[in-house]
């Protein structure tokens, strides 16, 4: 039986990702993201030595978790999880205490240098509410990004997830992320770039 309540999810098919950064660029333009900060970006990791090497991509957006730690720790209740699963920040309530940035395991939050409040990807909820897809989904030239309702058996996301192995980033954090990846390579998550020592 079909569940009336919506639960949105995003799915990245990394077999199709070519690392073109179109999602990161369109996100900046759609959401008016200032210079120096990103709501979505593509982490690139190279494995092996030339000629036996390959670059792997990890497009990162907010996971809009089922159990978001940012909502738990926000002292003024500015981080809110909607009934359809989208986690967003009330810009009029946020005081910029940065606790959500300290607690988020995925590093997707930033302080807007102009407004001094926390911001992050919220799957373009202004577009979703109007019946459109998020900007990055439309911009992706290879169709690697899918977005839809997990409770709708007819949605792209459900159909694709039913036939492919999916993974999330850092499942051990217990936040139950709802941004899923097909063909996720563990090295793209685990390899970290330290500041120069």
């Amino acid at each position, binding site marked *: 039986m079909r569940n009336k309540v919506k639960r949105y999810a995003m799915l990245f098919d990394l077999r199709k990702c070519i690392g073109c950064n179109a999602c990161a660029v369109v996100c900046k333009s759609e959401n008016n993201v200032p210079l120096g*900060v*990103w709501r979505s*970006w*593509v*982490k*690139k*990791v*190279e*494995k*092996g*030595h030339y000629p036996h090497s390959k*670059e792997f991509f*990890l497009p*990162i957006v907010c996971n809009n978790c089922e159990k978001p*730690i940012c909502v*738990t*720790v*926000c*002292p*003024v*209740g*500015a981080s809110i999880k909607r009934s359809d699963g989208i986690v967003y920040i009330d810009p009029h*309530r*946020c*005081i*910029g*205490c*940065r*606790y959500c*940035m*300290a*607690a*988020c*395991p*995925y*590093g997707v939050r*930033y*302080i807007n240098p102009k*407004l*001094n*409040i*926390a911001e992050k990807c919220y799957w373009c909820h202004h577009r979703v509410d109007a019946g459109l897809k998020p900007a990055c989904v439309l911009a992706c030239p290879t169709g690697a990004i899918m977005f839809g309702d997990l409770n709708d058996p007819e949605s792209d996301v459900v159909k694709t997830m039913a036939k492919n192995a999916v993974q999330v*980033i*850092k499942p*051990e*954090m*217990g936040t139950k992320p709802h941004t899923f990846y097909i063909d996720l390579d563990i*090295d793209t*998550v*685990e*390899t*970290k*770039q*330290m*500041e120069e*020592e």
Partner: protein
Amino acid sequence: MDTQVIYNIIQQEAFGLNIAIYFYLTGLSAGSFILSTLAYAFGMNQYKPLGKVGIVLATMLLIIAPFFLLIHIGIPYRAWHLFVYLNFASPITWGSFLLVLYPINCLIYGYFMFKGNMRLTRIFGFIGIPLAISVHGYTGFILAFGKARALWNTALMPILFLVSAIVSGIALMILVCIIKDRFFSKEKKINLTLIFNLGKLLAWMIIFDLFLVGSDLIVLSISHSDAQATAHLLLLGKFSPLFLIVENLLGKIVPFILLVVPKFRRLTFIVVASILVVIGIFIMRYVVVVGGEFIPLI
């Protein structure tokens, strides 16, 4: 196999030096308050001279401390949101009430102490102890709720913060008592028994602190990969000079030796030990806050 990051964004710093200073000041305040109640609430009369010094220090430090939070937050004039829009799951909400109640209690307790009303002093002393423990303990919970940072996300954090608060509080109290007796008292004579008693107390609290830091480090070094990276960062990486030499060798082990070896039972060495402890605990706050978020999340 070689893997290297070709492109990634640089994360902004969430908590920085301001938060480390804030933790340090609330720690000093809670430590001084607890010392002040030893005589006036628990009746340990050998610590009676600490009562008034302790409460004045505790109140002053806790009035300064929240200003570092105001500097830290992005929109300071929205600080009133903390008292109107509440989220009781968040340690910062607990803290916004503790930071109001604790200084008020300190003022009342101090007022009755200076008035000489011993019964009410005792009552407000007992009310103040859980407040003092909470006002510093909750800062440990703030860090412990940062579940992605291996150095913060441990149940040891609140107790580690409390013990280091008492350590720094005793050391500051020794210094302030010496300065007060030497320059501002009528007799210009330092109460040596009191100083040596405090020194002994300090030595044993340092050992407890070292035990907690050691337990934390041992578990970090065998836990998940980020925890191992953090242990490496503290022992061999960028933070090792601060962590090993300043915080633990100069800030804890050297003062402990100066305080317990009978040959060093002189005022000069106690002063040196206290100064080292006060600096060492500040570096501890800095290493925990800034070192904790040094390892990139993704």
